[in-house]
């Protein structure tokens, strides 16, 4: 095989990895602050994907244009979910939280199945099959847009948490729950806001994912698992970690598929996860929990 094959696969792996990173970002944001492990992550993303599909099939609204509106809708959904359902479970044992979000995930999958049926739905944009030819490398246009969105969303979130007062207040809640209460922060509201932000990330990711994959109700659990592999690899709670985890998994899968066998792609991704858990349990960019 020539060098161009390796280059093509590496570029595809990087782009896929960035999209994976965008997908896992919301999970990392929510856990980093609220400390709730969202097992309904992939299922929430499926909701955003179906919103994008319906908007496209009914009104021909391009997912790239609908990225921000869908993220806003998902923000409201996440805020309401946290304030109305998850907040009472914040101080309860972890197994209660686990059962709650797993139940939520099952409800979402079945609701989508009832509403949309099991058939795959697709968004056929005018650029769905476009690719850029750069020398010997052919770059998938849709993946490029999704990867660019991943970088922009991550940068925006990073800036929000780093430079805004609200972002700093949320970080304060994440660092010290009791301390945040003592200084008078409305922790419940900030938690709901964070969950909303996480859901907005999920919304953005889901919208972009419709450009590169068909949508079915059964997608959710697979994406939840993949998101966990990525954020645990990158560091649970770390936003850049999610992106790096995504990149690492995307690239590993691509190169393993090329050098060994595509059947073993997932095996290599999980191999990376095992190595990280063995030698750096907090993840590549995660902070060691005390």
């Amino acid at each position, binding site marked *: *095989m*020539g060098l161009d*094959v390796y280059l*093509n*696969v590496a570029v*595809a*792996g990087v782009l*896929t990895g960035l999209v994976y990173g965008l997908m896992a970002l919301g999970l990392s944001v929510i856990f980093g602050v609220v400390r709730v492990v969202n097992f309904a992550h992939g299922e929430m993303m499926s909701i955003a994907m179906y919103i994008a599909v319906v908007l496209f099939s009914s009104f021909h609204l391009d997912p790239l244009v609908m990225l921000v509106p869908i993220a806003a809708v998902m923000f409201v959904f996440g805020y309401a979910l946290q304030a109305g359902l998850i907040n009472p479970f914040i101080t309860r044992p972890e197994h209660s939280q686990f059962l709650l979000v797993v139940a939520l995930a099952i409800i979402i999958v079945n609701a989508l*199945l009832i509403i949309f*049926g*099991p*058939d*795959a739905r*697709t968004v*056929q944009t005018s650029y*769905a*099959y*476009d*690719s850029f*030819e750069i020398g010997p490398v*052919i770059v*998938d*246009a849709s993946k490029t847009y999704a990867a660019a969105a991943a970088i922009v969303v991550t940068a925006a979130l990073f800036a929000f948490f780093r430079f805004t007062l609200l972002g700093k207040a949320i970080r304060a809640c994440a660092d010290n729950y009791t301390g945040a209460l003592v200084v008078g922060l409305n922790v419940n509201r900030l938690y709901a806001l964070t969950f909303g932000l996480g859901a907005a990330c999920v919304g953005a990711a889901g919208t972009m994912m419709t450009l*590169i*994959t*068909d949508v*079915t*109700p*059964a997608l959710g659990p*697979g994406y939840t698992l993949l998101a966990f592999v990525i954020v645990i690899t990158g560091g649970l709670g770390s936003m850049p970690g999610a992106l790096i985890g995504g990149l690492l998994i995307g690239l590993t*899968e*691509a190169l393993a*598929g*090329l050098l060994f*066998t*595509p*059947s073993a*792609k*997932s095996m290599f991704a999980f191999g990376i996860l095992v190595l990280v858990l063995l030698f750096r349990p907090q993840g590549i960019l995660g902070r060691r929990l005390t």
Partner: protein
Amino acid sequence: MNSTHMLPNRRHLLAGTAAIAATVAAPAILRAQGGPLKVGMLLPRSGFEAGIGQDCQRGVDITPGILKSLGLPELTIINGDTESNVDTAREHAEKLISDGAQLLVGAFDSGQTTAIAQVAEQKGIPLVINIAGAPDITEQGYKFVFRNFPTAPMLTRDGFLAQKAVFDIVGKAPKTVAFMRVNDTFGTAMSKAFAAMMPKFNMPYTIADEISYDPAARDLSVEVTKAKATNADAILVVGRLNDAMLITRELVKQRWTPQAILSVGPGWYEDQYIKTLGKLSDGPMSFVPWYDPNKKLSKALEDALAAKYPGINLNTNHVYTFEALLVAADAYKRAGSTDPKALADAVRTTNITDNASIGPGISFNAKGQNDKIIGGGIQNRGGKLITIAPKEAANGQPVWPMKSYQDRA
């Protein structure tokens, strides 16, 4: 209380025995009374195979009217969803039997069907397989399992024969192929069959590389890049709907149109593939069990499908699911009973010559396999499926090579 009142006398004992005997005998009496046969219909209605499962369901939906027109008894269908999962298939087979299913039909996927066959045999309930190609299923010595669908070696044999027939017609043949396949039970069985049988059939091509992948894959860009790197003339593929669509999209994006896509399995002729990809769905050839468009029952099926699902092409999923139910109804009529053993005996002696699929008809050998089925070759053209092989069932000529994806509007 006088203790003598506690002991049953001989009259009570006789009455009790008679009551118990009547209760035990009741199901047998009920079984002999007729009424619709309860058929447990197991299909992957959700999960990654949902598209094909739903397509098979269309075959179920058009069955009642045709059975009635053939003078066959009514069937009561109890639906079960395997969720595209082997364990769920097993659980639902058990549930359907406990819910009163007297015969099972299913389940499209070899892995899921293998699990269902184990349950059927264990419980002594006949299973008529609609679609599943793994040869092992009918090599276990099962007494209650019957398959009106080719095994992987039969699929391969007929696939090779039909391909050679097409190569003869067009006067061209690929020298090398990239073999892409799913890594599940079906894909692995087909791979073994290819390896064993290719030399015997003296195929004009060699396999440049074998690329296996997860049937539930979300992305096949690396797989297609790898196939493209072989510089093969054509793609030989054993897959399903999900991966057929992913591969096609990647071929377009990676700007590679092979001379031909030769599919030996489902996916590429599915209605959803054609509807989703539009003009990009044109060209692939599928060498699969198919129906003879010239047979009377095929025309009845086409009419029934057109009436119920306008715009959908009749395909293997509909035909073989219908034929499995045809076998069930025919056996029930001849058995005159819902007793599982009597039903199994009746299925074993099936001899339906007026069927829809290509070949002389439906009958089963000692292993429960219909070994008389002949595979066909079809090509996607303009949203329609043209039968291109065998010659006696053909209704069109093959087009070779495929039109470049980049030249399609």
